């Protein structure tokens, strides 16, 4: 048998350089490292799958189905932003965690794997420009990555424990990557079987703060929260406790990160109203605000040239 030696590692170009230095900047702006193939970012969506998500909107459809629609669309937008024709660049690691009857890691994968292996594909209609100032309808394919579920309580503390492990492991293996982003979508306060509500709330706050205390070269992980409601008593990106109208908002305030400079541009483009020390949260979000918030939360993955 001929002797054969070969390098078992993958293409050397994919091996991270351990000597990578932070780019020379006099003042380091945190949460500003761009998502790239060299340093991919982690985005985790925590999706409320409790029984109350079965409630319907006045316009029709349940909160669970609408959440499913919005998050699936956000994933497709990430794929479109990182595709250059036939391939999807792996600038994003995506994790979907369900919080309902049980804590479920629905899927954690590279963006290209999501693109190449959706759960299923639906056909839909989209209006596109006809080049003459008008619109035409074209049939497009709409991949689906997870199904709507509404069952059980909202064990947020246990869910955030799972998130902390995923985020912590990612940061350990990718110390030069952008600080991870966690986007939590929920329709109510945390509740867990066998635990009183106050304790569950306190545990969820503690766990969220543990996540936000983790650290990497790009700073601390960000947690953004969207509480979906009907739009009444909406509280958007508050900067101080005085602005909080109810207990839901006060809870979210404690588990949300302050919006860093690097995300403020994305928020403004989406016409979301921010002030200097705004926290990344919306409570009682109506459907339109919910869509904008999800786009804001995942905007790190959609940065590139021509992103205006």
């Amino acid at each position, binding site marked *: 048998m001929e002797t054969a030696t070969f390098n078992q590692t993958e*293409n050397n170009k994919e091996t991270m350089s351990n000597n990578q230095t932070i780019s020379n900047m006099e003042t380091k702006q945190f949460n500003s490292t761009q998502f790239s193939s060299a340093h991919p970012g982690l985005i985790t969506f925590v999706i409320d799958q409790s029984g109350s998500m079965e409630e319907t909107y006045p316009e029709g459809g349940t909160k669970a189905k609408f959440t499913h629609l919005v998050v699936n669309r956000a994933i497709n937008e990430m794929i479109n932003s990182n595709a*250059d024709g036939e391939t999807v660049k792996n600038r994003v690691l995506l994790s979907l965690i369900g919080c309902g009857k049980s804590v479920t890691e629905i899927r954690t994968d590279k963006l290209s794997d999501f693109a190449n292996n959706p759960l299923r594909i639906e056909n839909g209609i989209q209006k596109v420009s006809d080049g003459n100032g008008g619109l035409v309808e074209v049939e497009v394919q709409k991949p689906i990555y997870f199904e709507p579920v509404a069952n059980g309580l909202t064990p947020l503390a246990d869910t955030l424990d799972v998130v902390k492990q995923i985020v912590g492991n990612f940061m350990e293996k990718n110390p030069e990557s952008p600080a991870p982003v966690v986007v939590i979508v929920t329709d109510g306060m945390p509740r867990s079987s066998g635990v009183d509500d106050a304790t569950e709330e306190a545990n969820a706050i503690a766990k969220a703060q543990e996540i936000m205390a983790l650290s990497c070269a790009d700073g601390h992980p960000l947690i953004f929260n969207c509480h979906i409601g009907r739009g009444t008593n909406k509280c958007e990106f508050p900067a101080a406790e005085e602005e909080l109208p109810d207990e839901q908002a006060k809870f979210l305030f404690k588990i949300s990160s302050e919006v860093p400079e690097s995300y403020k541009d994305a928020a403004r483009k989406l016409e979301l109203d921010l002030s200097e020390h705004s926290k990344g949260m919306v409570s009682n979000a109506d459907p339109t605000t919910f869509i904008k918030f999800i786009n804001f939360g995942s905007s790190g993955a959609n940065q590139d040239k021509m992103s205006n």
Partner: protein
Amino acid sequence: MRLSMKGYITCKEAEAYSDCADRYAYNMAAHRFAISDGVTKSFFPKLWSKVLVEQSVAPSGAAGLPMEQCQAEWLNEVTQRVSHDDVKWFTRNAFLRKEPGLATLVTLALDDENFIWTAEAIGDSFLFFVPDSVKDDFEKWDKLSSKPDPIEFDNYPDYLSSRGKGRGEKRELAGYLEPGTFYLMTDALSEWMFNEQSEALRVIEEEWTDQKAFEASVAHLRNEGRLHNDDSSALIIRLDDDNIWDICDGDTTVTDIDELIDTECALKECRKEIQTVYADLNERINDLLQTYNISDNAKHDIKQQLSEEFALPNRNCDSHE
């Protein structure tokens, strides 16, 4: 004048050559050169930048880039690819949405009849002309792109579009042929030239001796934070005075991105093949060892010895009694 040329190209860190959206082309007979940077977020940017540079240097009676022809060529190629049965959903959707390819472009033409050079640029790729007499005086270099002064590199360059009108207006520059060097560069290297000026020239002259050396230099500059992590390519066209009026062609060393891609692909396929062979070999060895009445430890030792003897990857014994 004697013309010699070098050309180097590399992709972003942790990406493959096949991901690189920069392209360049040249036509020595016509003394035409072009470089382009495909916008990553656009649709088939590599194809668009390739079409632009190839059409820019093609011998043609018409003045200027035949834009409609370029767009037709891009659309034809993309349509063919999208019509394959195994086309991905995101590719098909983008085609149905009529998404364009976008790219910058810098072109240079040397006219030895009139002894002048002319250049055009759109986007944040640059042409620099550095006459030998002013190498150390950055202000006296010729610099061309469509970026307005003061020059700031951002994520919003001008571009040519494969569908419809692009963005921004091209700029032009011309000059007399004299001893010196033209540098056609995409944005990351251009920004580095602005920042480091004559130090950049020194690095280019002393360190960029071949493609490998170029890549090592780029990796070093990126590690030091002196060069952004982006596709990086440069055509370096040198003019020396040999007391002959006409432009004579000298040495040409230009890396071919297609060859880099093919080599990369071949290496990837060979690795897969070897891994398949080794997996099969491992299975066969395990099956063979099963036929002997020896302990698991003995089997493990045999496999260890074989690994060392034949330089095989060391896989754990997974045989079952």
